[in-house]
């Protein structure tokens, strides 16, 4: 069975201990292959530490060297400073570089992640069904996510709410309110949480993710594989929904 992972990071981070990191693309691919992953969505942490262009260029150039089916995630910042490709230029460059999604890290890049500031990129992404990753472990707060989704309710996005505690009361309203929001399973820690979400919303709303290298790369696989759901539903979570999202964007 194919398995994709929508929550992968690699790169040096001088403020973290080395055992918490996966420093190179080569090392990432080694871990992915050992876990039996087919591919996944990858971001370079250097986007947050060195600079947004450096990291975006790095992931674009390094995923090309892998024999796994890797898609890059690019970090975006407000267009007002003209640092990154404009919303008009972005889709073509994403297609050229196999970039499957965009994300924001307002904590690292020090900007306001509010609808009025990010309107141009999010309007473009909304129209073209380009996935936006909202991962609270990547420097965006759940309140920011809530405000952005209220302003762009049809946005195609993947939500990962990083929490030490089970968090159904926070996650499930997002699934209920926003039709194109997918939940990353990386932080779905609740016992029987997968079964509960599928019973309520169907299998089309979950995407397998690990949160590697902060978390173990294979640790959520048994949660899906051994869930009390059908094989078809497992396939949707482990690869079908991911493939649909990556290939569903209009990047022309």
């Amino acid at each position: 069975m194919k398995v994709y992972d929508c929550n992968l990071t690699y790169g040096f981070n001088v403020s973290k201990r080395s055992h918490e990191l996966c420093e190179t693309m080569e090392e990432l691919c080694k871990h992915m292959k050992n876990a039996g992953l087919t591919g996944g969505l990858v971001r370079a942490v250097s986007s947050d530490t060195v600079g947004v262009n450096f990291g975006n260029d790095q992931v674009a150039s390094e995923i090309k060297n892998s024999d796994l089916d890797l898609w890059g995630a690019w970090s975006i910042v407000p267009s007002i400073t003209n640092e990154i490709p404009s919303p008009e230029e972005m889709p073509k460059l994403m297609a050229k570089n196999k970039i499957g999604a965009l994300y924001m890290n307002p904590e690292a890049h020090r900007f306001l992640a509010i609808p009025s500031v990010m309107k141009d990129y999010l309007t473009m992404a909304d129209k073209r069904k380009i996935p936006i990753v909202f991962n609270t472990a990547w420097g965006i707060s759940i309140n920011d996510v809530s405000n952005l989704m209220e302003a762009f309710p049809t946005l195609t996005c993947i939500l990962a709410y990083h929490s030490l505690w089970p968090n159904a009361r926070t996650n499930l309203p997002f699934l209920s309110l926003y039709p194109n929001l997918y939940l990353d399973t990386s932080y779905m820690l609740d016992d029987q949480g997968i079964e509960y979400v599928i019973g309520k919303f169907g299998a089309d709303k979950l995407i397998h993710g690990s949160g590697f290298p902060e978390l173990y790369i294979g640790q959520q696989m048994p949660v899906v594989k051994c869930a009390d759901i059908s094989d078809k539903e497992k396939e949707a979570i482990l690869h079908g929904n991911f493939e649909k999202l990556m290939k569903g964007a209009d990047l022309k």
Partner: protein
Amino acid sequence: MINNKSELAQNLWNTGSMGCPILDFHGHMHEYSAIYFPASSPEGMLKTMDRANVRMLMYCSHLALYDPTDDKKYHVDVVKKYPDRFRAYHSVLSRYTDPEKAIREVEEYPDVYLGFKFLCDYYAVPLSSPVHDPFFKYLNDTKKICLIHTWGGSPYNGVDEIRKVVEKYPDVTYICGHSFFGDENHAFDVFKDAKNVYFELTAVPLMRGFVERIVQHIGSERMLFGTDLPWFSTFHGIGTVLSADITDEDRKNIFYKTGDKLLSRYSWYTPIDK
């Protein structure tokens, strides 16, 4: 396949079962104010336990940890209904202690209770407080087990608090829930040679590399599997142990062998590795 280097992982991926039993030493039960649980009843939890091959869960109900009126009613009926699947830790509510009553109940129901659960962080009472002395004296005399919620940097159940109690009551078997999350290196130094201090894995999955470091510094012979069920999926804990860079022998120790030896002191327990 989770981990190409582990036969247990491949078994699970290919057949849905590792072919290895599990003893879970850290569970709860019933609803809890801060979390929604899809399945917090004994029957709901048994569904997960059956699928994951969890032979027995050692638990302390949320009710018993927050409602000081009656520990028995939250534990005795459940364990008597499912004697092969559950055993209880009697709660120690540090601000409402009645050691005489609690010890009497543990003695009255030896087939229900395996010892006591301490949750000092939540009550803001240090583990070494004199209010806990009668419980530790009893545990020391009877060689029963206690589960302690431990957390790095806590003034109530951090490394230094546990050390004080371990030095005072050296014959108690201590299960350190959460393995001093966040201050584990300090704990490794302090408890390296304390053979009666066990490291339990609930919350450990949230930090990659933690499992390997406990194996390296303490040894899998002093590690116990735990999940906080119904908080965290048992399969999340299984995935963590299967993903860690350790041997399948270490994994078997964590999943059941260490626990099997610990529980063998109780007359009600039939060892798996008999």
